[in-house]
């Protein structure tokens, strides 16, 4: 909203936490990109090297981020709103767990067998379902089972995608 606000206030102070944070975030990403592509050759305009575009785009990002951060000192805008960890943990956690269990993984001594959709499916529904404030256990458990069976039928049989169902039990 910042650039479009016509009325501008006098004096510089933080007038929009959100825009300031947004600007700083973009600057940080730009700096990270420049750091990561530091060793890539720029090449010349005739023969553009691998590093030319990442570095130039990152520089533009930093410039835009600076503009955004500075404009947050001049123009009124939104405040930062709260961050809901509950959603992040359960929803994204559920998805990560799905990724870990669907085909199994090994990190050092930690081993998870290949559990397949019949386990991973209910897991993701149950765990992500916890993010809702008005969750009902019974409903959620039934829903998890029904959804998993539906997805197994749809993806494995109707669409024949190669997704493991329960290799440890059914061998498929």
């Amino acid at each position, binding site marked *: *909203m*910042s*650039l*479009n606000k*016509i009325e501008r206030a006098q004096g510089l102070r933080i007038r929009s936490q*959100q825009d300031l*944070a947004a600007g700083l975030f*973009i600057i940080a*990403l*730009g700096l990270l990109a420049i750091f*990561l*592509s530091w060793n*890539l*050759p720029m090449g010349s*305009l*005739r023969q*553009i090297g*691998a*590093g030319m*575009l*990442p570095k130039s*785009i990152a520089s*533009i990002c930093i410039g*835009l*981020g600076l503009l*955004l951060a500075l404009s947050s000192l001049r123009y009124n805008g939104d405040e930062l*709103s709260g*961050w*809901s960890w*509950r*959603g*992040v943990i359960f*929803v994204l956690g*559920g*998805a*990560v767990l*799905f*990724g*870990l269990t*669907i085909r199994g*993984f090994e990190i050092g001594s930690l081993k998870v067998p290949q559990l397949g959709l019949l386990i*991973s*499916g209910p897991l*993701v*529904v*149950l765990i*992500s379902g916890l*993010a*809702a404030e*008005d*969750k009902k256990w019974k409903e*959620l458990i039934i*829903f998890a089972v029904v*959804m*998993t069976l539906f*997805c197994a039928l749809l*993806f494995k049989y109707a*669409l024949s*995608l190669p*997704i493991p169902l329960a290799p440890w039990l059914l061998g498929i």
Partner: protein
Amino acid sequence: MGEMISHLTLGFGVALTLQNIALCFVGCLVGTLIGVLPGVGPIATIAMLLPITFGLDPVGALIMLAGIYYGAQYGGSTTAILVNIPGEATSVVTTLDGHQMAKQGRAGVALGTAALGSFFAGCVATLVIAALGAPLTKLALLFGPAEYFSLMVMGLCFAVVLARGSILKAFCMIMLGLLLSTVGTDLETGQERMTFGFPPLSDGIDFAVLAMGVFGFAEVLRNLESPETRDVVRTKIGRLLPNWEDIKQSINPVLRGTTIGAILGILPGNGAVLGPFASYTVEKKLAKDPSRFGRGAIEGVAGPESANNAGAQTAFIPLLTLGIPPNAVMALMVGAMTIHGIIPGPQVMTKNPELFWGMIASMWIGNLMLLVINLPLVGVWVKLLQVPYRLMFPAILIFCCIGIYSVNNQPVDVAFTALFGLFGYLLIKLGFEPAPMLLGFVLGKLMEEKLRQALIISRGSFYTFIDYQNRPISLGLLIVSIIVLVIALLPAMSKKRDEVFTE
């Protein structure tokens, strides 16, 4: 003309096979089914349903995806009318009068008018695509790398101007998208760029991973935050078909809306989003009694809905002829085409004429399907609108998880998507609108390639882009981009723009 008819005959020959009709039907049905859910827009719907097309042949897959797209669009309008929640920017206008009509017990007429208007608009748009397809493709073959680069610059400028919220922030998003597109192995030199030395990243960031993370997961996180208040219409739906009086009132708005929407939809850079707003404004200006608008005027549903559908469809033109997606939905289509091994662009029409014309013919069939499916099934949609979000989002999640896993059969992709979900949530929290990022991401690789080629040809001189003697098209496109940006940044215009997007 004769050529167009022979092309359309070819197309209908492809689209009217039993399998493709079935796919189109299923696509429209599931698209509407998911699109009708409050808070799930067309982008999320397509991203979520992408995996169900993986097993199909390319023609069938694209026909189905197009069906899903129309279904999601129409589902969004249904939600807008019945619940007053617009699924996306283009159905915002429909909530104004559509929901009022629903409150007055004329929900059925509103839905019916929207469906009939959309059908008419869809028919016209299909003809427009068929007519413009061949000449524009020929034009595209004249384009060199410099023209392509300038065209994409123009597309991105339009996308910046037409994005919701701050122009500066939209700019940031486009640039971020471009930056993300450079991650992975550089195609020209084979060097790895910004991969943290992590092997799964050396192929670059997967398009489906980014789209589902930012539009699937992050959207769920955003929706979970605000406790939902659904204002589902409790009055009767009423009769569906508009009576003679309604038809007389809406016929001109439909015609005007279709024209406006079809023209704006062709613009690169999400012109389609302007269609409904423009149509609503025009109808309000032309009306004898403008005060009826906002209180359930049928013109306020008929015009914008037609414009919406016409624009949604003509937005395919830049994609099919030039290979340049004009908005985030079309960017998803590019992703889908690439997964099926088709590189969108002028060569599609010459190399795969069945695919090109089959898809165009299927657009018309899809519109017919929408009419056939939607009106009788209104009761089902109303029921769906009552599904609580606490059950909806776990279902969305399991679909996304299976979908992402199936793209490459890579479990690590699911974890990546979760990471992008977090990233998308952060962007939303910082007030960014992520749709332009997706567009930048998709155009990024192509832009880099064309930039390199253009500079090799011109021996490293940027003059090639503004060389008015040899490359007037490129110069023209760049001038248009600058004009668009300057106009949008003028204080008077930016105030108007704010009004349009907050109305």
